[in-house]
């Protein structure tokens, strides 16, 4: 198998494994707007494809991918303003409506955080280990631990209100 084929296989594997996670991070950044999140996710994977040859395995590949995702969202913020939360889909069954409402509320609450805290909590929501979050953000493990504790409390309180 040649180098180009190897890249294609690796990329397809990364796409399948990380699509949902990257999409959820992007959704968190754009207040749950599905269309914008899809475009952003596509942009993230374009960047992954573009830089894949330069990945040096100094960190886990997932760490590298989440860095690209967060940085792409950060860059996107430069061109965006007041992204509206989409309306819930109609005709859902009762428990689905409750779940949708809770997730919508989460988007709204996450959107109230500054972009650094937003990035940290979106990674925590994906169950990424705190040590890896620290490596993604370029912060110490301790600083991340303290922040997460604080944001968790705030977020839980806000969503459950």
């Amino acid at each position, binding site marked *: 198998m040649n180098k180009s084929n190897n890249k*294609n296989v690796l*990329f*397809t594997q990364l*796409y399948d494994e990380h*699509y*949902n996670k990257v*999409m*959820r991070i992007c*959704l968190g950044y754009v207040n749950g707007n599905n269309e914008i999140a*899809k475009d952003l996710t*596509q942009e993230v*994977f*374009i*960047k992954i*494809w*573009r*830089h894949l040859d*330069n*990945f040096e395995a100094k960190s886990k590949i997932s760490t*590298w991918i989440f*860095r*690209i995702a*967060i*940085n*792409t969202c*950060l*860059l996107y*913020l*430069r*061109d*965006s*303003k007041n992204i509206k939360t989409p309306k819930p889909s109609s005709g859902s069954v009762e428990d689905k409506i409750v*779940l949708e409402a*809770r*997730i919508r509320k*989460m988007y709204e609450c996450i959107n109230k955080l*500054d*972009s*650094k805290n937003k*990035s940290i909590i979106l990674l*925590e*929501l*994906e*169950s990424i280990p705190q040590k890896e979050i620290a*490596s*993604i*953000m*370029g*912060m110490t493990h301790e600083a991340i631990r303290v922040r997460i504790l604080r944001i*968790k409390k705030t*977020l*839980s309180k806000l*969503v*459950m209100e």
Partner: protein
Amino acid sequence: MKSFEDLKSNWQGQKFENKPTLDLSKLESKLSHLKRDQLIAPVILGITIAILLTFLFLQPKASFELLKNGLILMSASLFIRILFEIWSILETTKLNPTLEVNKFALSLTKFIKTRKLIHFMVTPIIMAIYILAFISLLPVFKLNVSDGMYQYILWSSTIVFIGLIIIKVISIPKELKLLNEMHDEL
């Protein structure tokens, strides 16, 4: 912290069934499109300069003398704008998305700071020079073109200038918002 664990489980329950199919050839073509799109603004500005200068050099000697200062000034201001556009493209390419978020945010802040300087200082000066140079040409147009053509030049340019100023005024607060947000965090 049980409630947060509930939120986490709700959050991770979001699955996206309509995941777009991966088409690597489309990805490659999108990459080259993106590169091409970045060049649109400098190319348009470059074509405008070429039109202005061609128009100038096609004039008989008498008109050439009357028009040269204004048209050269207009072209020069556009040329300076092109240089800034190219700088902006090069700097955007340098923003490495694989960096740690803190380092990326720092380079993004630096980039936006310079953009702020361009928005507040350079662009207004360039626009003012361009508009003043255009105004200086109006008496020449009035004498040399029909009244209808003169009115067309006058009003269409006024609308374009006002439009450009509005676009600039709207775009500045967006960048400032992020810049301020990042400053608070770094």
